[in-house]
């Protein structure tokens, strides 16, 4: 098992390597070179332009630029006083050593620190989404399989397709309108409440100094974003669960369990359910991947101060170091999710060869 985990971690290295190449290539493919972006002055002289290009390191060939971004340039000589001669060691440590440069927008901030401040919020939100999505989905899926072909099953199948069809941002916005405007006004008409929003319409906690209070004091802030984000998950998991449960039903051990007279409830939930979960661990990785990507959307609607919102703001202000750092860290998290899902699968399903 340990060997399997180690090998799986080693396999992630070429993937991560590929990701840095792809991300860096995209950064370079952007039309408009950084020199003209930084120096808008059309009267800038040609030799000054070249100097600036050398200073930024954009006149080097692709692989040198990529290497400098990846592992830094303190191993090579650079032209520090811009007189055209290599005279000093570089002072850039490269992303492998945690140096993503400095943020353009938040002057002098390390992008990794900016992400670190917001990572907790993203993980907090997505943990609840994942918990609600899997537990809700598994429950509905099992019931649908048990009552196969009946009214509940057919309704569930429609709900499951509908759940993955609704755009998250639209659902989130409809929830905000419902709980922020429509419902309070309706209740006020009947003399209940003051017409103020029933649930907080965004944010992670009340705007107070000194950060957010512990999570149990602000659970109501989680209700709307988690519901909006988890609907797709509930729908998706219920589809998978129903399918694997129906596969399990036809196995010999289920027939044996019924034949030896075990009560149906115990056959379904102790024999069937447990065996049907194993194949589902495969979907955990892609689900985590999807949640990380989707966090941009959900955090934007509910102004949840996480990595997604940071990336969104960085894109609007063209804060390249922060953009790159967010995408790379997001991918690292996603790969972590995929590995976790593979390991769980190996634990739950002893037929998997290590």
């Amino acid at each position, binding site marked *: 098992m340990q060997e399997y985990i180690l090998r799986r971690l080693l396999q992630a290295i070429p*993937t991560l390597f590929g990701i840095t190449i792809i991300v860096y290539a*995209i950064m370079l493919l952007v039309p408009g070179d950084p020199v003209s972006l930084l120096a808008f002055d059309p009267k800038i002289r040609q030799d000054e332009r070249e100097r600036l290009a050398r200073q930024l390191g954009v006149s080097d060939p692709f692989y040198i630029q990529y290497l400098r971004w990846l592992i830094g340039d303190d191993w090579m000589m650079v032209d520090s006083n811009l007189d055209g001669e290599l005279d000093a060691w570089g002072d850039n440590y490269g992303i492998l050593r945690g140096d993503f440069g400095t943020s353009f927008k938040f002057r002098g901030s390390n992008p990794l620190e900016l992400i670190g401040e917001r990572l907790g919020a993203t993980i907090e939100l997505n943990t609840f989404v994942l918990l609600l999505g899997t537990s809700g989905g598994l429950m509905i899926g099992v019931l649908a399989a048990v009552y196969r072909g009946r009214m509940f099953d057919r309704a569930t199948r429609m709900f499951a*397709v509908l759940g*993955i*069809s609704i755009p998250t941002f639209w659902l989130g916005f409809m929830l905000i309108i419902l709980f922020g405007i429509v419902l309070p006004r309706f209740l006020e008409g009947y003399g209940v409440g003051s017409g103020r929003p029933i649930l907080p319409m965004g944010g992670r906690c009340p705007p107070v100094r000194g950060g957010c209070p512990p999570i149990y004091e602000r659970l109501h802030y989680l209700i709307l974003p988690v519901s909006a984000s988890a609907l797709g998950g509930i729908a998706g998991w219920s589809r998978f669960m129903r399918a694997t449960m129906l596969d399990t039903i036809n196995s010999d051990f289920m027939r044996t369990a019924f034949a030896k007279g075990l009560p149906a409830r115990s056959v379904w939930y102790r024999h069937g359910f447990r065996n049907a979960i194993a194949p589902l661990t495969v979907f955990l990785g892609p689900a985590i991947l999807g949640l990380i990507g989707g966090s*941009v959307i959900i955090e934007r609607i509910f102004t949840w101060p996480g990595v997604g919102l940071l990336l969104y703001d960085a894109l609007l202000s063209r804060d390249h170091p922060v953009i790159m750092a967010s995408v790379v860290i997001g991918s690292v998290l996603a790969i972590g999710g995929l590995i976790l899902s593979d390991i769980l699968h190996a634990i739950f399903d002893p037929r998997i060869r290590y």
Partner: protein
Amino acid sequence: MKAKSRNIRALAPENREEYEFTPSLTMWQRALKRISRDRPTLGAIVTLLILAAFSILAPVISDALQIDPNTQDLRNNYAELFAIGHPLGTDELGRDHLSRLLYGGQISLGIAFAAAFLSLGIGVAVGAFAGFYGGIADDSIIWFVTTLTSIPSLFLLILISALLSPRPTTLVIILSILGWTGTTRLVRSEAYAIREQEFVIAARALGASNLRIMFLHIVPNMFSLLIVDLSFSLGSLILTESALSFLGFGIRAPTPTWGNMLNGGLDYARRAPHLVFLPGLLITLTVFCFFLLGDGLRDAFDPKIAD
């Protein structure tokens, strides 16, 4: 299965009179028969055809009702539903909402269809190549696919879109360049299995070239899978396009798409909720129908399900 049992029954002397030769159904005939009984799928097909017809006929309908998607009328903005001259009201600039929804459908559906077919093409070509040749080609393609899919797709998409500010054609290319990986995985594993079958060996014995075997013998054998895949990818492309537009990195105004209309409407939701509600409803309805259709097609083509 059914045809066989009928034949055996026919051999019994007492049934000989009843015997009538019924040729067994081909895959397509059986699928068609199953779909014709499957009401949700039929409903989805009809709805999609209606939506497509409305989008294609957008200019005709707009002319007939004397409405235009881009004419502004600031004295008559935020018109309610069923206002005179504007059946679905007007937006913040007084542009006719119905007409914008129709033209928006044209662009949203058009982008989804173009991107779905383009990424299907890339996916089939790369997947068939990887599955057929195996070895290093296969390993490197799979490494690339794994790498690309390990980056949260929306991160990559908004990164590229934010930097390029795409027009519809550019967006189609971006969506397909990022969207072919699923099809490739599917086609690759199928091709891997099919290439060992007898008819492929027979074709090779007859002197068929590798390209001919790949695209005339192996790929046609997965048409049913590809149609199902296409249906699901159409649905998810519409969702992706709308998500991009919602974040403001999709097609820019004034060109209407359902996504950017929805995004534009968010700022005026208190004043004119229908500007948010209707585009979202159309997106949901379209995606819902594509996913239902995909489910229905998968069941219809599934040889394991008995009639």
